[in-house]
């Protein structure tokens, strides 16, 4: 187990290093000169003097390898520079302000998707070859065929425009007003949860179906065990591996969803910051968001892999 853990940690470290390097290289491969961009782009017609001054300030006149070393040192101290647009330090904006707001939607959405998706998937497997089976499968298929932005827009149309029950797009911090936060976040969370819910449900259904046909299930039933403990104690544990993989991927996919959902619901999280930064070519912000997302991906992958080892003892021993 320790060896497995160490091996995974080394992999993760190497992967993170590659990501950091790629993100650094990106800015040097981009069309357009960052110094000109800071001074308002070509349209603002910055003088050569100004451009040189900014280059010196940012260290852009240094050779690339030295810039790379400086950059490594900076980000290891969580220093992502300042935004081109408002000169605020990027690290505190992204990590302290925007990321938590995105997680306020992302974490409840994930929990919702798991809490509903897993039981529905088990139910789907149990109801195989009944009239409910095709209905459940069809609903799941619909769930990941309808785009997130369509779900979000239609929910606004129904609950905000027509019924007027919930706000269409506002942000309330839960520490200021919990009730207001729940109202404002309800629609975005539901829109965000629907597609991962459908995927988790489909995966659970097929995985449980596979296990239900195995010998140990017959044995458990033969010794007179009730159906509930058969499912919960035996089938669940064995069928959760592929489901966990999907959960990990879906949690990562939530960032993709949050770009669109935060755009629709006017939610000032990391996804909307990313969109705005792309529009304004605010490179330090873009870099920081990409780094945060990529590294959380790596982290989630690591956790997913480690949970395999937790659920399946064979993995701890086999792979070395």
């Amino acid at each position, binding site marked *: 187990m320790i060896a497995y853990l160490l091996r995974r940690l080394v992999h993760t470290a190497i992967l993170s290093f590659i990501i950091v390097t790629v993100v650094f290289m990106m800015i040097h491969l981009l069309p357009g000169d960052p110094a000109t961009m800071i001074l308002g782009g070509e349209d603002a017609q910055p003088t050569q003097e100004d451009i040189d001054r900014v280059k010196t300030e940012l260290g852009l006149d240094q050779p690339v390898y030295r810039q790379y070393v400086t950059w490594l040192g900076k980000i290891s101290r969580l220093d992502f520079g300042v935004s081109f647009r408002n000169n605020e330090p990027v690290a505190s904006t992204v990590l302290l302000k925007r990321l938590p707001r995105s997680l306020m939607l992302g974490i409840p959405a994930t929990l919702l998707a798991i809490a509903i998706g897993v039981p529905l998937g088990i139910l789907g497997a149990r109801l195989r070859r009944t009239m409910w089976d095709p209905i459940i499968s069809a609903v799941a298929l619909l769930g990941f065929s309808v785009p997130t932005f369509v779900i979000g*827009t239609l929910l606004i149309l129904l609950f905000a425009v027509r019924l007027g029950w919930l706000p269409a797009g506002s942000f309330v911090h839960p520490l200021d007003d919990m009730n207001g936060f729940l109202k404002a976040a309800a629609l975005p969370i539901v829109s965000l949860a629907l597609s991962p819910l459908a995927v988790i449900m489909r995966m659970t259904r097929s995985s449980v179906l596979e296990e239900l046909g195995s010998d140990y299930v017959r044995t458990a039933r033969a010794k007179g065990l009730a159906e509930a403990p058969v499912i919960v104690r035996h089938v669940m544990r064995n069928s959760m591996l592929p489901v966990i993989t999907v959960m990990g991927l879906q949690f990562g996919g939530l960032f993709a969803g949050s*770009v669109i959902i935060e755009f629709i619901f006017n939610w000032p999280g990391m996804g909307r910051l990313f969109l705005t930064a792309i529009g304004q070519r605010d490179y330090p912000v873009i870099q920081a968001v990409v780094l945060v997302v990529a590294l959380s991906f790596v982290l989630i992958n690591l956790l997913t892999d480690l949970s395999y080892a937790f659920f399946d003892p064979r993995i701890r021993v086999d792979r070395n």
Partner: protein
Amino acid sequence: MVGSTNAMEPESSLQAVSAKQRPNAFLDWVRWATRTPRVIASGGFILLLALAALAAPLITIGEPAQIRSGEQHRPPSLEFPLGTDEFGRDIYTRLIYGARITLIVSIVSVAIAAIVGTTLGMLSAHFGSPVDTILMRFADGILAFPGILLALFIIAFLGTSVVNIILVIGFLYIPRFQRVAYATTLSIQENDYIEAYRAIGARTGRILARGVLPNILAPIIVQISLAMGTAILLEAGLSFLGLGPPPSVPSWGRTIQQSSRFMNLSAYGVIWPAVIISATVLAFNILGDALRDRLDPRLRT
């Protein structure tokens, strides 16, 4: 037409016999497709949409961008089958023209991904490491990221145009085909008939094209149908965010975003494009599922 000569007859009767013994694979397919309800429904919808997109100028009402003052937010009527939007433009006409861009982007990008990905996958399986290791790590790297984030990112730097979107989606989908081709080629290569190709001294190109490719086509076709569905989702998502095809093109995603600002006045501008995007993606997913069930029972979910 060929006249009936005596010389032709033995040959044609021979064909008839062999057709009876070994049923024509193509006819088999047609029979399966026309007798499977979900294939009829999904395939029929896709076919209809493709035909409508091709024949767009013949079956629509004026230009998609034609603005009619005084005709804004009309409900569906004989004159405007699906109603009009906030500029009095005919929603039906815009959706049919939108289908053109959606289908062009998804078909071309999936074709690029399928060709490049399958080739890379077969090559890495055939040659083994280190090509194998490098190419498959690369695929893992791309697959680990959410598509739309990478797409947003690349589009932000390349700029928005139809060609760029096709290239980005094509690039993002390469690993899917690479993985499928890699895994299936690995298992196929163990067969004796591939060994036979080697024994007669066939070159790599011939082994892969004649020996391997026909036998890995089934899972690739399944992947094509599923990738079409997600490519449409991705294109619609990008155009919803304003990073899709230019504003002159009535792409479905952009239509929803623009009409959503006027939802309190009329919902038709949002509902119809929502229905058609969802139906199209659903059709490709259902078709993909059906194909998978027939071609590759092992992958059944």
